[in-house]
């Protein structure tokens, strides 16, 4: 599992743009590229397109490392967001009839994939707060309505838009939007209630 503190040090070192920045960036790439390629591949489907996304995303990470916020505590999630957003854009420009072509490769068991796709055991660098937060999230996800959970997991892992999701689930757009919105809202209020900050 990737260590956020180590990744953050490497990002800041790469962003310093001095001697040794290239070594730090290379180390960052060696550590993170395989996971990020897995993330990209779930969105774009094809391996060669996913490698394109990985290339573009790392070029972006190198540029953005200069302004990387030293206060940010989730550098891996930050990189995952760059990769997913790039993947979503590339897919949109590559393949017009993507819903049909991706239909077969989409996850048919989103509930089971929660445990296949994600890591629920705490990482080595995680503090007590983060450890508890992970437990709450897993628990709160299982308390969502099945259709909401399915919509969230599908959208997250494949980077689907509301429209893609509606087509895939064969439901009206409004219904799917409601599932996503309500699912996120229930998740937030459930997690925050556990944290003691619910409103």
């Amino acid at each position, binding site marked *: *599992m990737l260590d956020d503190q180590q990744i953050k040090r490497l990002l800041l070192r790469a962003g310093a743009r*001095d*001697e*040794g920045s*290239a*070594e730090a*960036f*290379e180390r960052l*790439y060696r550590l993170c*590229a*395989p*996971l990020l*390629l*897995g993330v990209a591949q*779930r969105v774009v489907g094809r*391996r060669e397109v*996913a*490698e394109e996304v*990985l*290339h573009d995303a*790392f*070029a972006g990470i*190198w540029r953005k490392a200069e302004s990387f*916020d*030293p*206060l940010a*505590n*989730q550098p891996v*999630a*930050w990189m*995952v*967001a760059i990769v*997913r*957003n790039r993947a*979503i854009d590339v897919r949109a420009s590559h393949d017009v009839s993507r819903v049909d072509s991706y239909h077969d490769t989409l996850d048919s068991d989103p509930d089971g994939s929660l445990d*296949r*796709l994600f*890591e629920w055991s705490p*990482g080595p660098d995680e503090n007590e707060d*983060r450890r508890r*937060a*992970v437990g709450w*999230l*897993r628990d709160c996800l299982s308390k969502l309505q099945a259709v909401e959970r399915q919509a*969230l997991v599908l*959208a997250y892992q494949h980077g*689907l*838009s*509301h429209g893609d*999701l509606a087509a895939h689930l064969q439901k009206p757009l409004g219904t799917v939007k409601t599932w*996503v*919105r309500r699912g*996120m*809202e229930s*998740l*937030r209020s459930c*997690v*925050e209630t556990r*944290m003691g*900050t619910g409103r």
Partner: protein
Amino acid sequence: MRIESSPALDALCGEYLIGTLQGSARRRFERALREEPRVALRLEHWRTTMAPRYSPAIAVQPSPQVWKRLQAELGLSRYRTPLLRRLGLWRALAAGAMAALVAGIAVEVLKPVPTEPAAVTIAQLEGQADVARVTAALSPDRNTLQLHAARPVLAGPAQSYELWLIPAEGGAPLSLAVLGNLDARVPVAPAHSKRLVPGAKLAISVEPAGGSPTGAPTGPVIMAGQIEI
């Protein structure tokens, strides 16, 4: 309307995180992430608490071409430690006059990285005995305030620290930054930096995650200090 004060802030963070916020809506949100500090902070809260981590099991090894291309396109060779420096000076000298000569050239060619002019300490912030002392230093261009805590001070997941400037002439405290920890570089707007003068005070309060909901301190002030320079 600014996104940071929109009632839809949480919904937008959620949809951004999950990926259903796409196209121009996503770009608008990303602009707000850069320009509105509370949006970035709220998203950080979402990332910490609501985004699962991917399992290492999904990793796929990329082909070697991807790195080769990146390295060439980004011109990374400029940022590598020169071989001689990596070997260490003594070994370079031991390698003989030729190596020493080459090292001399290398030093000549590689201009030293310009160092940032030192920031000037303007205040010491202190609170109860159990809270670390924090020094505040201002960069010579007065654009950046550097906070340094004697020990790490981290906000809990449901809290943020907020840094306030209490103007010398009196009046309401001005919010300078919402922070997750007290070792931080804080960009200072010109309107605020001209008020960082002797007689003004800096204070840090504990607020709900994302900062004070009212724009004025709502939680306990854990430390404060007079600006002296």
